[in-house]
């Protein structure tokens, strides 16, 4: 038997090295520059880089590639602007930007897109100047709007291929284990970033808190998924997480809507032992949680799980023992970080576990009740969470269509008019969530049940609730507001598409003709 001596003098048979097991190599020999052993040696102790630019350089990022970010800091994110500025200064162009969403903290994207640094955008939401840039057709390629579940699906199936993911990490050890639950910039769950880390070709953790020792417990993303660690002075302002879209309301009108929604939920009979529950962002939907909490306490009902988009009130429901588990894909309030860090029943989940329709089971599909906000709805119960009254993009798809499709009862809460403009239309400008997945629309002036759910309408009436025909409600509101002129859209000039959670295209975004 002929053999080869390996690095420590043991003989390995040549017939095995060249045999049926594929290409095998004796221990102690250099495999190749890209071989496994070589990579492990290279990574150890050398993940921490001097600054963002060095991380970008080492990542191999070049023109035409795809980069991603998470939006867990919402309006307080510093990382996306910091990295894009470095990229711009380094002269890299024609990038595809594929963050989990864009917020008010990401206004810089508008300029960078107009200058060709970013030429394609995949996102759940857009606001401010970015929305204006897209709606006025100033970005080279059409934008793709996805849901949170849809994005997880797109990453898993490869329809979004991230070359470099930049992950804001509130605490990270030198090996690259990182978490959102601790540190001065703690933001809670890193659920959206977890899927980026899994699928991106290269992962850069950007942190302001590099731990001396190992990360104690609560690891969101393990070291084996992290290639580099860039240390910066500050990654974000957690106090800005709970502003804007996730502010808890004191507005009496929103509270009336929330109370009406609660009555509908109660009448559905779904708030029962073992129930599961989610509320979306938006003042009225967040307020519903408060009413549900009081009811569950009064009736001594213990549910199976709460899901979200987790707010302080949902965390409170967990500490009240109203749920067995609270699943948290995104913390809507920095106040919940202590809960996620210390309560083992407050479980951080990734976006695939949350809502990926192609996965072997996701939590939204097990939901009993979800309460969701809307910008506009129409008489077919379709929901628009993207377009403002001027037609310009200023919202986010989020988990809207994912949860509506999954939950047994999807309640949409919306004021019947805002600033004199009615919210119930003949047809919404942009369908994000199809009407066939929406069960009830609740306003301050009445609740409308989808004709597909006569069982619900019957249950509501039996509980003494008044059910209003949606067309009748629309007319009643228009008697107050009048009928607005439709927004002028240039239908020959699409500026984007809206992807449904399964990857099919549910609607097209058009250039808004400025009046």
């Amino acid at each position: 038997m002929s053999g080869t001596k390996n690095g420590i003098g043991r003989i390995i048979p040549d017939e095995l090295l060249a045999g049926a097991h594929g290409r095998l190599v004796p221990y102690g020999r250099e495999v190749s520059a890209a071989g496994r052993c070589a990579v492990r040696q290279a990574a150890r102790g050398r993940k921490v880089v001097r600054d963002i630019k060095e991380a970008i350089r080492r990542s191999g990022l070049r023109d035409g590639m795809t980069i991603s970010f998470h939006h867990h800091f919402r309006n307080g994110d510093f990382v996306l602007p910091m990295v894009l500025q470095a990229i711009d200064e380094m002269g890299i162009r024609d990038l595809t930007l594929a963050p989990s969403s864009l917020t008010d903290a990401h206004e810089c994207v508008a300029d960078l897109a107009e200058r060709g640094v970013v030429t394609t955008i995949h996102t759940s939401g857009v606001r401010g100047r970015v929305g204006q840039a897209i709606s006025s057709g100033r970005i080279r390629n059409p934008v793709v709007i996805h849901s949170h579940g849809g994005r997880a699906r797109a990453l898993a199936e490869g329809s979004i291929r991230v070359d470099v993911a930049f992950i804001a990490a509130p605490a990270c050890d030198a090996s690259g284990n990182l978490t959102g639950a601790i540190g001065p910039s703690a933001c809670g769950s890193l659920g959206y970033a977890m899927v980026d880390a899994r699928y991106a070709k290269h992962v850069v953790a950007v942190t302001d808190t590099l731990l001396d020792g190992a990360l104690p417990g609560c690891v969101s993303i393990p070291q084996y998924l992290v290639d580099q660690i860039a240390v910066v002075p500050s990654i974000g302002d957690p106090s800005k997480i709970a502003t804007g879209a996730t502010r808890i309301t004191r507005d009496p009108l929103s509270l009336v809507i929330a109370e009406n929604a609660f009555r509908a939920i109660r009448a559905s009979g779904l708030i029962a032992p073992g129930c599961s529950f989610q509320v979306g962002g938006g003042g009225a939907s967040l307020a519903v949680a408060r009413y549900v909490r009081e009811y569950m306490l009064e009736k001594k009902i213990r549910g199976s799980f709460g899901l979200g988009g987790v707010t302080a009130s949902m965390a409170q429901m967990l500490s009240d023992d109203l749920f067995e588990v609270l699943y948290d894909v995104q913390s809507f309030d920095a106040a919940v970080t202590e809960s996620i860090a210390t309560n083992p029943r407050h479980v951080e989940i990734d976006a695939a576990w949350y809502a990926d329709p192609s996965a072997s089971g996701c939590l939204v599909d097990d939901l009993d009740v979800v309460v969701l906000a809307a910008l506009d709805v129409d008489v077919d119960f379709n929901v628009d969470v993207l377009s403002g009254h001027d037609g310009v993009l200023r919202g986010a798809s989020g988990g809207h269509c994912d949860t509506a499709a999954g939950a047994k009862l999807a309640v949409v809460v919306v004021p019947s008019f805002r600033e004199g403009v009615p919210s119930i239309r003949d047809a919404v400008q942009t369908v994000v969530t199809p009407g066939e997945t929406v069960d009830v629309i609740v306003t301050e002036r009445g609740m409308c049940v989808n004709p597909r759910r006569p069982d619900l309408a019957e249950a509501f009436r039996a509980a003494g609730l008044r059910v209003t025909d949606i067309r009748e409600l629309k007319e009643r509101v228009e008697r107050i507001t009048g009928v607005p002129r439709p927004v002028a859209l240039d239908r020959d000039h699409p500026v984007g598409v809206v992807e449904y959670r399964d990857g099919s295209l549910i609607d097209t975004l058009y250039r808004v003709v400025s009046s």
Partner: protein
Amino acid sequence: MVQHCMVLGADGVILDLEDAVALSEKDAARFLVRHALETLDFMETPVFVRVNGADTPFFEDDLRAIVPARPDGIRLPKTDGAEDVLRADALMRRIEREAGLPEEGVVIQAMVETARSLLHAYDVASASPRVSGISIGGQDFAADLGIRRTRDGGELLYARAAIVAAAKAAGVDAFDTVFTDVNDCEGLYADALAAVNMGFSGKAAIHPSQAAVIHRAFRPDEKEVRKAARIVRAAREAEERGVGVIAVDGRMVDAPVVAQALRTIELARIAGMEVPAE
């Protein structure tokens, strides 16, 4: 707020032209309220308009603008005696006649806001069939007495009790004054509960968030409602059998107890509670 006031949970709404409106905005507010009355659907919510007092230059203009727009009622501030009510009544009658509208379709809720007015509360309440209720304006009343209002409201105890007695004597409703600290739900609840116990028909709210708290105070508890239903049922059966005094749950029931039970059932119905067959 005007366009949404009917959905915020109150049993009635008051659109204000008086103290909530700056002097420079009186005309604009009057126009806005009239327009709202003419165009908005207030659904089942009764609408009252608080006009400026008879001692102001706005009083007549307010009534001329508002009465033809047919609110459910006019809230008349600072009524010092029957003559103030009669003056408003006469003016309203003239406005209605000139506009070809039925007379007395719009009721008056008169506000008692001074010591002098309190002493004439019964005269105010019984001055005209148009008066459907009287109320105490706590802030102005305290100012007239030169005192400060407190959280537990002890300083208004006599005035509130006197208002209820005057209203009952005249057969009209009595409405309690507002609790001004909108952030103090517990204080409001205690104050509203006191109003219930004193016999007020209702209580004014100064913010939509107060409506639910006031409702909670006025809502009888379920045990009380069940007992009231038993009393009313037993009284009816006794009447049918020609029996005088009866006993329910081992206690004697006479006419005042039955009257109280009827009131409990009325409150339960207003609160939307299920009431067992009487």
